[in-house]
């Protein structure tokens, strides 16, 4: 199998690294060779965060090449646009329909771009927007939005649903298990 690439992006504090860990665990359970990269440090102070996951029969680089990523899972709309160049022309862009003003916008020095969805549709093979933050708040915890997004990704990948459920069970503390399974379900069953 040709190596496939997934890029997860968003804002520091949104649970991106937990999501990419979970994804890697599932892919390992599914029998693939998996490599994952992430960047720590400065990016955790409200800056943009990227994590990439690559899987297949034999994976060398943990990083995808520009224009060769199969899926982008964006936790924030502006970050989806920022990373769109990584996506292959036929690639799928899964986006949390959520805007988080970066500091230059919040302080009034710059404007948050309009019509991100329209731009993404021109640049990606397929674009799906999901109100993951709102759905997570409805489930009672905004932090579960990352697992909702993972659920949406799972619905687009051909991996046994049970493997995702098993991996969530192993990854999250018992008291959050029910919430996270519900979150996964909400993302998995989401239809735009």
């Amino acid at each position, binding site marked *: 199998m040709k190596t496939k690439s997934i890029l997860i992006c968003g804002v520091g504090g949104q649970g991106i690294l937990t999501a990419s860990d979970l994804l890697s665990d599932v892919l390992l359970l599914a029998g693939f060779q*998996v490599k994952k990269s992430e960047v720590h440090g400065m990016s955790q102070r409200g800056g943009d965060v990227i994590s990439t996951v690559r899987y297949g029969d034999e994976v060398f680089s*943990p990083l995808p090449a*520009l224009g060769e990523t199969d899926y982008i899972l964006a936790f924030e709309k502006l970050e989806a646009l920022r990373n769109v160049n990584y996506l292959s022309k036929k690639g799928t862009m899964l986006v949390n329909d959520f805007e988080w003003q970066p500091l230059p*916008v919040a302080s*009034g020095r710059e404007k948050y771009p309009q019509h991100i969805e329209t731009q993404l549709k021109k640049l990606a093979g397929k674009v799906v927007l999901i109100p993951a933050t709102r759905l997570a708040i409805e489930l009672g915890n905004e932090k579960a939005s990352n697992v909702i997004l993972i659920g949406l990704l799972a619905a687009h990948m051909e991996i046994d649903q049970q493997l995702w459920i098993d991996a969530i069970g192993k990854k999250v503390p018992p008291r959050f298990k029910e919430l996270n399974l519900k979150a996964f379900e909400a993302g998995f069953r989401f239809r735009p």
Partner: protein
Amino acid sequence: MAKELLSGNEAIARGAYEAGVTFASAYPGTPSTEILENVVRYKEVIHAQWGVNEKTAMEEALGASFTGARALVAMKHVGLNVAADPLFSASYIGATGALIIISADDPGMHSSQNEQDNRHYAIAAKMPLLEPADSQEAKDMVIEAVRISETFDTPVLIRMTTRTSHSRSAVELGERQVPPVPEYKSDFFKRNLLPGNARRRHVLVEERLKKLAAFSDSFKYNTVIKGKKRIGVVASGVSYQYGRETFPDAHFLKITMPYPFPVNLFRQFAASVDTIYILEENDPIIETFARLALMVPGEGPEDPRRGGAAPHPKIIGKDVFPLLGEMSQDVIQASLGLKDLTPRFDCETIPKRPPSLCAGCPHTALFYNLNLQKINSRGDIGCYTLGALPPLSAMDTCIDMGASITSLLGIEKALAKADKTIKQVAVIGDSTFFHSGITGLIDVIYNKGHSTVVILDNSITAMTGHQENPGSGKTLMGEDAPRIDIVKLVRDGLGLEHTYEVDGYDVKAIKELLKRETLRSEPSVIVVRRPCILLYRKAKWSPLRVDSGKCTSCKLCLRLGCPAISSDADGKALINETLCSGCGVCAQVCAPNAIAFVDEKGLHSSTITLETYLSGDRS
């Protein structure tokens, strides 16, 4: 054995466990921090500790090695500059128990002030260098390093990079070796580097390098991978992975021990190909050795097909590939003109998302005041370096750990010679002050400086993810420890009369102290105290609210650069209640009193004073 997905740093820690390491020390620094944070998982069998800086950490590991114990010390690349003094001595002394030094380099400067290539240190200090290409190798190299260290009586340097440290891949777990039982035996000629002893040791160091060169030729992790074409790729570290993706048909010489360089292995490899691409991040270390290896007269590569000396293959290295930044499949292809990296969407057209001080950060009020009072600040290394970015824009210089205080003194003295002065302060965090700020402050006092040093004491090493330090009252292993009080240290220990303490949230008190102390013609220290807000997330205070009727859109609160504050279409302030920590700093800077605390009944009220608010049940 079980396989687990581990980061390179976790794999180093696992390697330390399996190799029978019993002592590990480090000073935190991205991308190396998680090494010791994971070693401590094995605290039943490994003593793990934070040194106050990289030099102390390395010397402690060297001491442990004296007893025959296997020791590991980890740091980020610039940390090895701090530890360079013991590094060179350790090379002469050698290792009784294994001494493993991990340097995590940061090509691309994800969170560093430079992208120095620490492989140079192995060459300069004359010790073997290992460069793993993934997590499995990171673990394996610690085990190999222990063997090499004890066989050849040498410290071993392992170079990680941001990508190898922070990438995850499958690692096969193994059993722990039984560690040697430590015992201190005196060895004066080996460990006391008096010049007479050191001269004898240097002879042994040079002999050791020759033996290690022969070892490198047969080291099983310096491997040839056969390809189909007469193209060769010589690569180390994560560049090997990028190379395998880019040149699927090439022959590969994967170099895991770049120093001493496997000269003979390389020459054999060179004879089998017409072109060699050398892939390595930052400097041409392998390339230099490779070119030298083919320059020896009469020892050119033999080509059996032609029955004699063949022309040397063409070497493509840093003449084509960049010295700057990280390598990647894209960088390799673009360098060779095989891929156009012009993006289909121009990211320069959208707002950047720079990191910022957190909502409720106890450093914000200081930088806000420095900015308003136009005080020039000498910065240092930590979260607070973010005070350099707009809108706080209150940091003029940032050099290296501890340099805020010393550069301040240099500026002051140089200007004084010309009867000039500027309003300036040094800003340094608690951990950085312990690391290498104390010595600078002693310089200020001793040399009769009169500048002001601001120490931001949030009781933790925050930037790298909250590691304990001498002011935290806890050790890496979670034990209680004596808490070194910076105010007492400076006032009572160094005898600095003008030492003041102020609450990081008290905007007015900070303002007045800065005003008064920058005018003083004696040295002074202001310790701005308040624990890191991220440590107090659980005890969240109520968010503040804006009374839009009172808000005059003056935007003063936006100058705090607080991520929780933005403005609406009319320019009125807005507070994001999810992000707001309730620190109350914005309420103090709001001239029309439009930002208010919320009292326990949840009512909108501007009657609570800061004093009541700060003294309440909030910490």
